[in-house]
């Protein structure tokens, strides 16, 4: 068998990106090891922990359970694409101000997932927040401060949009 790499053309954080990968490499591996975007974290590598969450064509996915070759022609947002023009996104600010992190390893996944939630639902109640973030595990500090941060971010975003 000829082991040929595949040329993938995709969009990452609004920019056209091309990379060569093996079909067996996950999107997570491609982002971190080939494209050089190491903000997306590898936790469990089997779809349980959500640390590797990215937005793929508007939907959040575990990038460890997507093959790099699958993203040909598609649109990806990673944690590196959340802040704009050098300024933190309101979700990022709220996580910092609410101290909604401890070791920080789960934080990129939580922030990406929260961004996708607030894009869909600008005023989620606590149950909706907990339900949406159920696939993002934090092993340090629990979820209460995360929920408060999401509520704060939602309020800040509503204020900005007036």
């Amino acid at each position, binding site marked *: *068998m000829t*082991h040929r790499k*595949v040329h993938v053309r995709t969009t990452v954080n609004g920019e056209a990106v091309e990379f060569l990968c*093996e*079909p*067996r490499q*996950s999107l997570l591996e491609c982002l971190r090891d080939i494209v050089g975007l190491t903000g997306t974290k590898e936790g469990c*590598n*089997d*779809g349980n922990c*959500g640390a590797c*969450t990215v937005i*793929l064509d508007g*939907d*959040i*996915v*575990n990038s*460890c*359970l*997507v*093959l790099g*070759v*699958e993203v*040909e022609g598609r649109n990806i947002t990673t944690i590196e694409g959340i802040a704009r023009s050098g300024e933190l996104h309101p979700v990022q600010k709220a996580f910092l101000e609410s101290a909604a992190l401890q070791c920080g390893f789960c934080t990129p996944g939580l922030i990406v*997932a929260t961004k996708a939630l607030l894009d869909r639902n600008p005023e989620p109640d606590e149950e909706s927040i907990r*339900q*949406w973030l*159920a*696939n*993002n595990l934090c092993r340090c500090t629990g979820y209460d401060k995360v929920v408060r941060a999401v509520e704060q971010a939602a309020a800040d975003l509503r204020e900005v949009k007036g």
Partner: protein
Amino acid sequence: MKWFDYTAPVTLAEAMNAVASGPRAKALAGGTDLLVQMRAGRVETDLVVDIKRVPELNELSYDSARGLTLGAAAPCCRISENASVRRHYPALAEVAALIGGVQIQSRASLGGNLCNAAPSADAVPMLIAYGAICCIAGANGTRQVRVEDFCTGPGRTVLEPGELLVSFQLPPPPAGSGARYLRFIPRNEMDIAVAGAGVQVVLDDGHFRTARIALAAVAPTPLFVPEAGESLAGKPAVPESIHAAAEIARAAAQPITDMRGTEEYRRHLCAVLTRRALEAAVQRATGGRI
């Protein structure tokens, strides 16, 4: 993961050729089971056929005469958000929103849930209760298999080499019908069912016309219990009839004892979940909200 080749066909004919090109070719839908199994070395393949770009595998359309055509690769998030599914098959929308978390639901498909053939698959009892038919394509054309006849054992199905599950066909819900899937897990969300029950009832003037009942995680395959549903035909929709059907479901279960629950506990759950699912389905059939 070991090396494999990858192809993403855009027509059903190309997908069929790829799936039939070798005995180790594997169809990839959402990958939430397959990629985990490949990484763990439980599944070996030399060709992954990504079927998500094939229109027939992604169809999601409702017609009042034909019912619901559901592509085998359509992700759970599209199913649970689809207005026709929510209106005509609310229990299917609920099941699609029950499997895994949001990240999993963005990718996981009901075709994958069935082909993975886990006894605990949450979508399968509900597909059976709704009377869903599998449309399977192969080298010699297409064939139809009822969902309750699809799984032959844990991880095993009726699919022959080179065949592909293309879609499900669900009949239009009869007037006076209601349905519900309930499962028991020790956590609030995101767990594998200890046991589950999916039911559909059709009521006529306060009496059951028909009922279909299927169970999860209490047999080597998802378990259709036709005798439980048939016991309800013609009976009034009252607690006594429902209780009797739930006892038939309990007796039909063939559970094992494992880390999630004992045989005895699972039998108990079958009766409780069947009873509660029937009560909820009856409420829906009579216009009530649950």
